[in-house]
């Protein structure tokens, strides 16, 4: 596997982590009730979206530059 493939895999795993952190924040907010966790959850989900957008743009750019065939 090349660095491009590994990078896309890494971004996928990072996105899953961001979603996981978001779910964890919601869970802690429901059990402990600290509102700051709600902000953490929102930030995590926004990060996940940013990572997805970056991943798609990266793939397109690599394809455009013919670094991914």
């Amino acid at each position, binding site marked *: 596997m090349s660095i491009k493939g590994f990078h896309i895999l890494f971004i996928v795993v990072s996105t899953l982590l961001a979603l*996981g952190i978001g779910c964890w924040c919601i869970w802690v907010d429901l059990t402990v*009730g600290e509102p700051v966790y709600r902000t953490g959850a929102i930030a995590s989900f926004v990060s996940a979206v940013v990572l997805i957008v970056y991943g798609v743009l990266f793939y397109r750019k690599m394809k455009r530059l013919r670094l991914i065939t």
Partner: protein
Amino acid sequence: MEIPYTVSARRDTGLWNAKVGIWLFLASEVMLFGGLFSAYIFLRLDAEPGDWPHGLLNVPVGTGNTAILIASSVTVVLAWAALKMRDLTKYRIYMAITILCGVTFLVVKLAYEWPQKFEHFGAFIKEDALGKYEPYLGNKHLLEKGLSPRKEITGHLHNKEALSDPNIKEYEIALDPVYADPTNPAMDRPHFWPMPATEKIATIEKSDVKYANMFLPKHSAYFASYFTITGLHGAHVLGGVLVFCYMMLPASTRIYRHNPEHLANRVEVAGLFWHFVDLVWIFVFPLFYLL
């Protein structure tokens, strides 16, 4: 003498040699970290209820470090892409940012997170003395809610000499919030922002203590695993940073001038290693900080 297959692929493997080498190396790394992760998971599964420390790590700092490593993976790929585009200036900028991210990660870990742990203290109370420290533990309240009992009291040790002096018969601890107000769910861990120890002092007799120590590897299986895995991971980050620094030296520029593809291939294998190191952290973070 020219070393063969540094740029062009071998006919039998279809790859240039360094790529075969890095994947063999990463396979051995998977086994190394896999063994350590397995050990951690089994230690945790076998722990008695209440024996496994929980919520002791600084989640915002860990999250920040995770973001730094993810960003560094992006910049290392951009550095490689810049080389492919034959843009040496951009390559240097992205590589410098990658190095900066790696160094920041290490500084946060070694100069902030680890020393914070070394200053914290925990005393595991003997089973038959748990009732005596009920005002700090709040186990009756936990039992009513169906939660695991607390067996350890943590905070800042006032009389540190008590650890080594057998003539001192008790520990004086400035309690962590959860033990200062044990029935208040708002004080319970985890806290998003770490809460400092309170001014409430508890005196714990040494004869009631099963085991007590600062938050060092010998404190518990949890901290032994934490320091081993994060320490080994930190060593890998340091290794990656050193390799990237080498790739910024004039020697690497000479390689670029001679054959740009040769340097691009070197950056690619170093980048693969860096991605692996970051991927390991993606597993370390939730395992230690969140779960």
